[in-house]
């Protein structure tokens, strides 16, 4: 599969943006500048980027509580994202959603969701709309291994399979649902095995390999656009941070992931290191270019943080707006 050089570099830059975005946020959370909970996406960048680069701008996605990566990969504006996470009125959701709920309807991001598994029926409905309108769009639903145990997983995939809807169910299996190992609570080793129950294709792919993800999702998108129905794609991946940044404050020393495991994923299977190595080896990217890209990413993020800091807090009475379109 030949991918243009520019696209490869763009993919690399986007992955790096996600990594630095989350790194920056971690500092800001510990610095006390960010209200609420932040679920960092670091470590899973290849999944979001591999997937979203196989989609068009007007294709739909639904995202999760760990959604920053999906949004950045789909092309969301860093300033408005950061402002939302800061609770500012210039944020995507005017400060009414925060980290877990960022939406950009202009580029098909139907919102991240704080309820595990809730995005599945919503993406299914977006796929139904695309089918009814004959628009050729597809809907991609990001969800985790945890959500694959929810009832909505079954209901949604069954519905989409029965109706042959253009939906890609994209499972990010990062091996833990909050603080519980998936191996203890998921009945199958590969979530993609569950596809057989719905008579649709189920594929497991290395979620640390952005090109492998891209290729598999492209296939699923092709199938969806052709009207053949949904696919279940499982990406095996890993989150570097805890379930939530700063979780040590409430779970204390009670560890649930071996330190060696975290270290192994970071040192052996880091999606950005692997992709960069590949690009450099293929002569697509030089070390110098890579440094330049990184400097640009960091500069963009600094701008985004400055924008968020300088933006005004919403006026308290704005809390009363946006409940209804009209009343």
């Amino acid at each position, binding site marked *: 599969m030949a991918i243009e050089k520019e696209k490869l570099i763009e993919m690399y830059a986007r992955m790096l943006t996600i990594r630095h975005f989350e790194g920056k946020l971690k500092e800001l959370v510990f610095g006390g500048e960010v209200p609420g909970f932040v679920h960092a996406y670091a470590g899973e960048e290849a999944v979001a980027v591999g997937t979203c680069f196989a989609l068009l701008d007007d294709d*739909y996605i*639904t995202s999760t509580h760990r959604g920053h990566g999906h949004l950045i990969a789909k092309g969301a504006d860093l300033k408005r994202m950061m402002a939302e996470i800061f609770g500012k009125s210039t*944020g*995507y*959701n*005017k*400060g*009414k*959603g925060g980290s877990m*709920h960022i*939406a*950009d*309807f202009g580029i098909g991001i*139907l*919102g991240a*969701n*704080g*309820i595990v598994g*809730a995005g*599945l*029926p*919503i*993406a*299914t*409905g*977006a*796929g*139904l*709309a*695309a089918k*009814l*309108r004959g628009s050729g*769009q597809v*809907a991609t639903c990001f969800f985790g291994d945890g959500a694959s145990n929810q*009832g*909505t997983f079954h*209901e*949604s995939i*069954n*519905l989409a399979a*029965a*109706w042959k809807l253009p939906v890609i169910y994209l499972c990010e299996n990062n091996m833990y649902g909050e603080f519980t190992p998936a191996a203890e609570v998921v009945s199958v080793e590969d979530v993609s095995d569950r596809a057989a129950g719905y008579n649709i294709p189920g594929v497991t792919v290395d979620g640390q390999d952005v090109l492998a993800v891209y290729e598999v999702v492209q296939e699923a998108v092709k199938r969806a656009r052709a009207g053949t129905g949904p696919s279940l794609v499982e990406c095996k991946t890993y989150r570097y941070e805890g379930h939530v940044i700063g979780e040590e404050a409430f779970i204390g020393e009670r560890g649930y992931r071996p330190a060696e495991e975290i270290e192994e994923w970071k040192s052996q299977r880091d999606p950005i290191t692997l992709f960069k190595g590949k690009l450099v080896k293929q002569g697509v990217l030089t070390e110098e270019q890579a440094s330049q890209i990184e400097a640009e990413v960091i500069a963009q993020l600094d701008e985004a943080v400055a924008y968020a800091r300088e933006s005004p807090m919403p006026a308290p009475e704005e809390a009363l*707006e*946006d*409940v*209804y*379109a*009209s*009343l």
Partner: protein
Amino acid sequence: MREIVYVQAINEALREEMRRDPTVFLMGEDVRIGAFGTTGGLVDEFGTERIRNTPITESGFTGAAVGAAMAGMRPIAEFLIASFMWVAMDQLVNQAAKLRYMSGGQAKLPITYRALYGVMGSAAAQHSQAPHAMFLNCPGLKMVLPATPYDVKGLLKTAIRDDDPVLFFEHGALGGLKGEVPEEEYTIPFGVADVKREGTDVTVVALGWMVHKALAAAEELAKEGISVEVIDPRTLVPLDKEAIFASVRKTGRLVTVDEGNKTGGAGSEIGMLVAEDDETFGSLKAPLRRVAAHDVPIPFSPPLEQFVIPDEGRIMAAVRAVME
């Protein structure tokens, strides 16, 4: 004027709105057949793409309506029985009700959730509930409880055209009720109460099936020389508070009648609104009274069921009490 029954009025509203707007479609369990007579025959005109039989999948289709609405459609999703809404509570309450707000106004959710509600005769508690009061505590949802064929048609058309999620409660006992419905097109705005009977002594506020119980009670009470005004808000959200206040200021007495359970019911909210409005409160000549279902799940056996649901006798007793 011609007369048609309640379910036929619903069928007409669906048909007219689907003809008017190609983004409107209907999905739910057995909608092709139309088990209760409301959707029968629509598939012949609109086909199986727009009249979609779903699996038995309440969370699935409730959420699919949310997604379809956010992606530019105007879905109507039907709960065969209102108690089945509990199966889909996350999608109704966390998603449909909240997503416009949580997205800072980006999401548009023009969804009509239709639900057959209330007592229809020995169906027991999982098929007999009037659940509207639970949703009063869920900002983001609108609620309609029509009592007549005329109201159900005009309000359903408004619900379908509305850009917010609407819970549209159709009463199981009213399906065969006949009433005047004009041939020509009309809609009824939300938030406008209807005075179903004018009176001067006591204001009775009732919704849905209870409007008819209240009217029957008023007829009896008239023989005793008590003049009852029956106000039907028709929509619980938005609620026409002014119409209620105006009536209570005139009569000085309020009895609410609600098919839902008494505690935390719609009557409780209406009563409190009256109590908080200084001018209306100042005009009261008697304490407020609520008539509602007793605080138990709806039982199966006919005498038990009849005992739990408000009837004319209980309404009359409450009216007499405030007249003393």
